[in-house]
């Protein structure tokens, strides 16, 4: 008889119950996972069935029209690409630099804590408020009167332009980008920094050559999240006055624009049944762009991971 057998009395019968609980939890977790997946699959199948017949070359090459058969996505498609492209150019350098400041340069007291709190809260502000902010700050610039005032060749105020939209969306996604980038920077082992400092490197040399390369896969994940959000946002663009009927594509950042989610929203709210299918076709294009964009960033991320010699 083993010494501890007394204390483990009923071990075998309890083991059956313990195993059962284990299995139960496994199925519960699987169920939780499938809720999201099934909902998405149902949605996707519905959209594909309604939209695919309408998804033709003409759909991508036509401007919006009053008749569903002629209605096209061209203005919204290019408008979105312009806005999201410019948003990337604005928010990635600012977001990464902001995160580098908070993680690498700033002390960890008082002011730092305040900034941290503000940014975390900004991430939770409803997007429509960003739209109002964009309307006042970028579109109207506090109602400065001169319609054709300009500064260094930049027309002021920005008006309902691609530039104003990109600035607004940048503000919207910055908190998320900063928080994800900070996490990525925090995951870089301290020994790497100490190695660089111990050799007489400056903070910037250490960040530029060791910390940022090591954090770049994580930072790119943040960029995916930020850009996906920017591509799908409707409310702030509606509030700041992106157009709903546009028969041209932007040729510069100062041109007015519309975006894919706005166009989809517009079609979906029409009474004619055919426009519902046109909206579905638009959703397919939006999803394709989203997936393509994410795939591109993931490709970049894999390359960043490989280029670090392991």
């Amino acid at each position, binding site marked *: 008889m083993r010494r501890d057998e007394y204390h483990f009395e009923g071990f075998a019968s309890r083991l059956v119950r313990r195993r059962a609980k284990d299995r139960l939890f496994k199925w519960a977790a699987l169920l939780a996972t499938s809720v999201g997946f099934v909902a998405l699959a149902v949605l996707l199948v519905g959209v594909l069935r309604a939209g695919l017949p309408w998804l033709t070359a003409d759909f991508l090459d036509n401007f919006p029209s009053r008749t569903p058969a002629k209605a096209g996505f061209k203005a919204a498609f290019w408008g979105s690409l312009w806005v999201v492209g410019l948003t990337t150019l604005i928010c990635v350098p600012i977001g990464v630099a902001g995160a580098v400041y908070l993680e690498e340069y700033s002390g960890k007291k008082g002011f730092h804590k305040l900034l941290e709190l503000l940014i975390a809260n900004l991430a939770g502000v409803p997007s429509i408020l960003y739209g109002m902010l964009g309307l006042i700050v970028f579109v109207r610039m506090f109602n400065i009167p001169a319609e054709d005032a300009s500064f260094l060749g930049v027309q002021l105020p920005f008006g309902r332009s691609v530039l104003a939209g990109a600035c607004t969306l940048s503000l919207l996604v910055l908190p998320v980008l900063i928080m994800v980038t900070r996490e990525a920077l925090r995951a870089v082992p301290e020994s*790497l920094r100490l190695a*660089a400092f*111990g*050799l007489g490197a400056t903070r910037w040399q250490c960040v530029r050559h060791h910390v940022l390369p090591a954090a770049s896969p994580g930072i790119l994940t943040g960029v995916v999240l930020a850009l996906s959000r920017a591509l799908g946002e409707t409310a702030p663009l509606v509030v700041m006055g992106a157009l709903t009927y546009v028969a041209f594509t932007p040729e510069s950042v100062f041109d007015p624009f519309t975006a894919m989610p706005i166009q989809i929203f517009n079609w979906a709210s029409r009474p004619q049944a055919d426009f519902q299918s046109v909206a579905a076709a638009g959703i397919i294009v939006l999803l394709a762009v989203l997936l393509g964009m994410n795939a591109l960033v993931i490709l970049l991320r894999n390359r960043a991971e490989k280029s670090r010699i392991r």
Partner: protein
Amino acid sequence: MSTLTKARSIPTKVPSPPRAVLEVRGLDVHYGETTAVRDVTLEVPENQVLAIIGPSGCGKSTLLRCFNRMNDFVPGCRVEGEVLLDGVDIHRSSLDAVELRQRVGMVFQRPNPFPKSIRANITWAPRMAGFRGDLHELVERTLREAALWDEVRDKLNESALSLSGGQQQRLCIARSLAMSPEVLLMDEPCSALDPIATGRIEELIRELREHYTVAIVTHNLQQAGRIADRTAFMYQGVLVEVGETADLFTHPREKKTEDYITGRFG
């Protein structure tokens, strides 16, 4: 300078002690409310190996990190007193921390090579500092000094992380030597290594003494005995005793030192 050389060349019966590269005077280090190092006064003589021994938590690593201001990165750490590098106070003079760390290099407890090629590990810091010389020559010379050249000469472009732990640590030493430091600080450099790798590093440290000044923290008494010219014993933040290694181990002046080296505690 010339008077100094002259004074040295005059034959005397007592050999004049070597010049102190680093001088520590009345050094206190606090972490917030606790005091880690209390009133330490110590010299690190040129072209010698100084070992700092003592039980865990006695402040020996903290003391070592003062020598190149690595404690700057520890939040809440305050340093009082003087650390003089060639007679210049490293905390209160215009000497920049970046310049200081180029002159006082550091090798850490765990090998921490950059996740780059072996060559890039050596060349990175000199390039950042504006090195204008021959980088190939620098790589070969420092790897030879670190007794690693023969093992890596054919794979300089391979990842430093493909090396064994002992090789990585020697690469870290070579990387520090590439900055031509006056002093090399080593914080328990062998504690993560096996006995064979440890033996090679110890051999290397003895050779480095010809061109460099070394201060090494170790909790391994035998190691201090094997490699150090002078040994300092610390206990609870206080420097108990410092002297020639042989003297300290055979005729300790303090009871505490004797208890520690005979293994009564620690």
